[in-house]
């Protein structure tokens, strides 16, 4: 099964920076990567998103050449690289812990690859200065690695790879070790760096917000397979599988049974007894009486006080409940609402800080559109 989308053929060039065809990797009986195919056009920020142990690191190590695939082919710029050793592939990698060489200073770290390639001394000096300029750290050439901050190390690790003009840059969760504030800043910075270098970035992460913010395309990976490849908004709004719906973004997630399947919607009763009108998603059809799973994103549920007008289109699902707790988080504040059936429903609210705000124990009316209840057969 391949998820190669025709929209990838967006440019005249038929050569893709990176193309994997049916690659699998088995460790004994365990299949870490299972028949994965994808193509990445030039200059794309491509993320592979999946929970830990889904095979994404193995996939990346195969692209870099540290592992050989059991089956399948990997081509870079249209040429198969399976027989090329890792040091001859023009694929550079930013490691999870960066792997900067602690016994060399910044200049020597960046010059290492150029020296391996046999560049002349003046050429090395020029290229190092140039790449340091581009990552906006021109004065750090003679700094030792242990004197750099986390964000600077990150940029030096990228600069070290970019000095070699790679066809593809692989990034293996490089933001994992940073603290939250720096991580947020580096997300934007990575995206800007990718634009500036105009190189294909393949970014591996388990953090869906990193993938959504930075990527042009995201592949969601689970148990060694690609569940879906698409633009971030596509994955978010039109997931093809229940796994993608659950993994990308936050959702209210309920298991239930389809009571009635009609062309304009499916009537579902959840295990807890909540009845919901939903729309069928995914590839396998839903039969009446079948077990289903429903995902509703909190931002599509509007919580209004009784008596207030409700949004007109949102009236297809309507439930009343009481507010169990208010989860204040600035612009991303939520309420947890307990419905009469006992189900807890998460909904986004605006907390302004005035007396109008909802409080614990308030009665509230929740409404959302049928189209926003994504129903998958289990």
């Amino acid at each position, binding site marked *: 099964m391949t998820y190669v989308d025709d929209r990838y053929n967006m440019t005249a060039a038929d050569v893709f920076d990176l193309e994997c065809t049916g690659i699998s990797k088995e460790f004994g009986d365990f299949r870490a990567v299972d028949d994965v195919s994808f193509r990445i056009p030039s200059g794309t920020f491509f993320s592979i998103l999946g929970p830990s142990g889904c095979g994404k690191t193995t996939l990346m190590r195969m692209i870099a050449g*540290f592992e050989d695939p059991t089956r399948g082919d990997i081509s870079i710029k249209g040429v198969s690289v399976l027989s090329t050793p890792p*040091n001859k592939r023009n694929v*550079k*990698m930013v490691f999870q812990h960066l*792997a900067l060489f*602690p016994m060399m200073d910044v200049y020597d770290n960046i010059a*290492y*690859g150029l020296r*391996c390639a046999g560049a002349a001394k003046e050429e090395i000096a020029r290229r190092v200065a140039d790449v340091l300029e581009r990552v906006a750290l021109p004065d750090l050439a003679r700094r030792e690695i242990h004197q750099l901050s986390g964000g600077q190390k990150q940029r030096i690790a990228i600069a070290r790879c970019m000095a070699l003009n790679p066809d593809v840059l692989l990034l293996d969760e490089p933001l994992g070790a940073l603290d939250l504030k720096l991580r947020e800043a580096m997300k934007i910075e990575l995206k800007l760096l990718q634009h500036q270098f105009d190189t294909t970035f393949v970014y591996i992460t388990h953090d869906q917000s990193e993938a959504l913010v930075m990527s042009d395309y995201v592949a969601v990976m689970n148990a060694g397979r690609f569940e879906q490849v698409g633009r971030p908004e596509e994955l978010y709004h039109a997931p093809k599988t229940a796994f993608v719906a659950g993994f990308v973004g936050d959702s209210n997630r309920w298991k239930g049974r389809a009571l009635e399947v009609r062309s304009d919607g499916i009537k579902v009763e959840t295990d807890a007894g909540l009845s919901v009108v939903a729309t069928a998603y995914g590839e396998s059809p839903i039969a009446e009486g079948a077990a289903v799973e429903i995902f509703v994103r909190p931002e599509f549920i509007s919580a209004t006080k009784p008596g207030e007008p409700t949004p007109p289109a949102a009236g297809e699902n309507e439930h009343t409940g009481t507010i169990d707790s208010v989860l204040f988080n600035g612009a991303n504040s939520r309420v947890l609402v307990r419905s009469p059936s006992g189900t807890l429903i998460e909904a986004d609210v605006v907390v302004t800080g005035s007396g109008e705000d909802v409080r614990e124990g308030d009665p509230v009316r929740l409404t959302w559109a049928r189209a926003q209840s994504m129903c998958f057969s289990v």
Partner: protein
Amino acid sequence: MSSDVKRLSLILLFSPFALWIVLLILLPHIGMVALSLREKVAPRVYEFGFGNYIDFINEPIYWNTLLRTGSMSLLVTALALLIGFPVAYYIAKIAGKRSRGALFLMCLIPLWVSDLIRAFGWILLLRETGVISSFLIWTGMTDHGIEFLYNDVTVIIGLVYTVILFMIVPLVSTLDGMGDDMIEAGYNLGGNSLTVLRRIIIPYAMPGIVAGCIVVFMLTAGSYLTPILLGGKNSSWFTEQIYDQFITRFNWESGAAFGFLLLAFTSFVVWLGLRLSGQSLTNTVART
């Protein structure tokens, strides 16, 4: 009250170390220096002077022995590094987690047997009527027994065997601290096996290499048993000279001078090695 207890426990903890340094290292050495600066002018009559050191310089056999001991110790150190590095690399980076402990233990096992017994083991193998010689006669490669003992090669083999563990241990511990991603990054950025070894693995392991070399060099230059047993009278190891002065000739003054000269010489070699490799004692020996 509590600060007094703290101070007392600090003193108690520190005292064995202080006693050891002062009583067993500092005092004997001061005594040695004082002893070495006494000249015998008549029976039981001594004078202050540098006569013992001047004797050393005037007698070529003495300083030749010292230079010979130094250069052979350097050779032993180099050989121990050459053989120990691949072993340490295999234990730290290639062997699986489970076999690592077993391999390390196997390196340690020879230490459970005393130096003397191990040297006799070599003698058993290498003497004229020993295992190797007999084997060669049995295969018909030679018709009379061969004496493998009492030459420099045997001494060096025996010394390398005795000290190599002290090279492997610090090397394993530094190489263990190097992440696999460091090596992978070396390849990923275009390096071949030689560049990765030369530019990444060896510079990273440098503190361990230097620490191992210092320990091995000091142990070799100061060893007595192995050179004597395997090299016989021909070994001319400097420790043998010192032993001679003290025990055979009963010339303690000269023996003390020789002992002090050995210490000064080996310290100088170590200092030179540190200068040349750009390392310091604190980040090598003190770290492992």
